[in-house]
């Protein structure tokens, strides 16, 4: 052994002896992420340092969205993992361009009581979207009762969940872990699987990093993981749906974008409906104003149009959002409960629209 190597080894050994356990933990397993077969246990990817999946490994960055999808009030923890030396390319529209080997990690959890959100949190599932050479691949891991191990469930699962909500009401329902086809039903545009949330406009907000609050796009740029982004104030921004300082219409459109736009888009699964709810759409007809249903069936609720301006109770869109009946409720996937606050937002938005006197509104 050459002297330099020997000294290094000695130093490492001494370090290990001096502070037991301080040796750097093994990094995220890049080859395991890229393997065509999902790992038998979430821990195999080494995305987290602990068995319970709470403490992210090096290179696994937490992030948040300005306006997320509602999922039965589940608390979601989101992380982006990027392989060493790789970067994300900025895109003004659509999801950012992630490098091969990147993984988007999202854990769904429920506190027993939302009035004490930090206590008795039950982690249900952790979903991975992995950018492989041939495209994105989705897999979801379901946590065991001991919260020590998560294993893949390709065919989906229903799990009884119950919690006390912020107003003290007990909510009990069958939570649906999606199967891999269902992942694609929301995550595919024109048949191609991909991320939905992490687009510039929905990431363009402040995150509370350990080192202090900072805009996410700015932070990623500053640490060298995002290329080509303009300063955050020059980038597009999805409003926060719950930021009452924002105009009502902006918040409502942001909510519909996040909760409906992945399917109700020109390349989404509901493209045949002619109802398009992404933020980029501007034509009131395709946004549902005065739009008659095509294949709604009982989802019409005996109402005539998707949005009847000034009349939320006459608007199919609101009726289906408020429903929890399969075949009526929208979104079709991803929720079993109604989202009271989201429904209230859309109700207020439709109520505030000037009522029309045209023939399209009864």
């Amino acid at each position, binding site marked *: 052994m050459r002297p330099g190597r020997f000294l290094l080894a000695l130093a490492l050994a001494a370090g290990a002896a001096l502070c037991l356990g301080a040796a750097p933990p093994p990094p995220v397993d890049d080859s395991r992420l890229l393997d065509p077969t999902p790992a038998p246990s979430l821990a195999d990817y080494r995305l987290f340092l602990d068995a319970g999946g709470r403490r992210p490994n090096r290179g696994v960055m937490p992030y948040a969205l300005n306006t997320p999808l509602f999922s039965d009030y589940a608390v979601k923890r989101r992380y982006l993992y990027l392989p060493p030396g790789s970067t994300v390319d900025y895109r003004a529209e659509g999801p950012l361009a992630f490098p091969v080997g990147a993984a988007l990690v999202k854990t769904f959890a429920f506190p027993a009581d939302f009035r004490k959100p930090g206590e008795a949190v039950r982690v249900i599932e952790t979903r991975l979207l992995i950018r492989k050479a041939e495209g994105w691949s989705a897999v979801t891991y379901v946590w065991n009762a001991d919260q020590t191990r998560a294993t893949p469930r390709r065919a989906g699962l*229903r799990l009884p969940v119950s919690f006390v909500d912020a107003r003290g009401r007990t909510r009990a329902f069958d939570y649906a872990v999606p199967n891999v*086809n269902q992942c694609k*039903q929301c995550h595919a545009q024109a048949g191609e699987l991909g991320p939905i949330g992490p687009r510039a406009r929905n990431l363009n907000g402040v995150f509370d990093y350990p080192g202090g609050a900072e805009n996410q796009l700015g932070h990623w740029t500053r640490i060298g993981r995002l290329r080509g982004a303009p300063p955050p104030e020059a980038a597009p921004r999805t409003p926060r749906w719950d930021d009452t300082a924002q105009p009502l219409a902006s918040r409502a459109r942001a909510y519909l974008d996040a909760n409906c736009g992945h399917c109700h888009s020109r390349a989404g699964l509901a493209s*045949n409906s002619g109802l398009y709810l992404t933020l980029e759409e501007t034509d009131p007809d395709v946004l549902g104003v005065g739009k008659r249903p095509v294949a*709604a069936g009982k989802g019409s609720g005996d109402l005539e149009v998707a949005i009847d301006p000034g009349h939320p109770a006459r608007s199919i869109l609101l009726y289906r959002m408020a429903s929890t*009946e*399969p*075949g009526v409720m929208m979104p*079709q996937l991803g929720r079993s409960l109604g989202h009271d606050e989201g429904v209230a937002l859309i109700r207020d938005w439709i109520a505030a629209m000037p009522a029309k006197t045209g023939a*399209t509104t009864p």
Partner: protein
Amino acid sequence: MTLPIAWTAVLAVALAGAAGARTIDVPPGPNAQEQLQAALIDARPGDTVRLAAGRFELSDGLSLDVARVTVAGAGPEKTILAFDHQKGEAEGLLITSNQVVVRDLAVENARANGIKSKGVDQISLVNLRVEWTGGPRATNGSYGVYPVASSNVLIDRVVVRGASDAGIYVGQSRNIIVQNSRAEFNVAGIEIENCYGADVHDNVSTHNAGGILIFDLPGLPQMGGHSTRVFHNRVVDNDTVNFAPKGNTVAGVPTGTGVMVMANRDVHVFDNVIDGNGSSAVMLVAYLQSFTDPAYNPLPRDIAVHGNHYGRNGFAPDFAGGPALARTFGGALPPVLWDGVDTFVHPDGASETIPARLAIGEGPVANLRLKRQGAPATGADPQVTPTLGSAVLAEPPAIRLPADQAGQ
């Protein structure tokens, strides 16, 4: 091949053929949901997912996203996919991959649609039964079989009962055959909407509110429906009171409609038996609602109707102005009804007149002579003639599916 250990116990996988196409056997049982969905996910192109006889109690919609897979049961009275306790998803079975065959099974009581395909090429639905077993109810699902935005669609020997919209519905698709099928106790028996090229033949459509509908609607990605042949069908006794939820287009279809063509072109209706339909045997009408889509044409045009056998129809017309018209004609409407509309107003306010070009070989035919699109029949100024129009209209070519399409 390898399967997760958990599945080897329940899936008997047999290698078959040099290409390695497999048959994955799935039995009914308490874990049917996960087993069947897993089989649909684990299938590889060329595989058959074979469902044993029995009742599969399912808690969620199923989906298939693998090309060239056949899903086959033991027969539409033997293998039953039962969605009575469905908790999520709108469809019984959703297909999003090309070259799929579903055959020899039943789908019961799906919460919305029975079997849907979206955006696929070559979908064959063969020898199926899709049924809402509680009879006609507004709370039943919408469509029995529902290919949409698809191409090369084969619907053969399919029975649908109880759909609160259309039993057999094909929308925004092209190159379609619906044959040898039976639709009964639905709001609409068979509906071809916003489609390009369809042959609807040798079907029985009975005891629906409306028998066979050829429609085009505004505001959709594929519009301008055309080239449909409706022939050799029995469209008889469509007498179930329309039970569609309001707001849906079919809610406006009069109970007792035989064949209805709305806002479409190059539609040929011939050699059918059309009997016992209280509102009308054949109706040619413009889209009734207002619309904002500048590309939309709401008129039926280039329509041929000939060689049909009409029994007793039009004796109980179920639309505004209908009973008065029937009295005018001595108790029953003539078998063919045209609203006479050839003028509509574009959303920008410009009025356009398009000659209808009709070839109605035998009638009598009642031209209601309504003045404009959207006008109710109460304003009719009817004129009855033995035939109507002598336009020379080339029959749309017979639909041919790709020679390699499975299920033919």
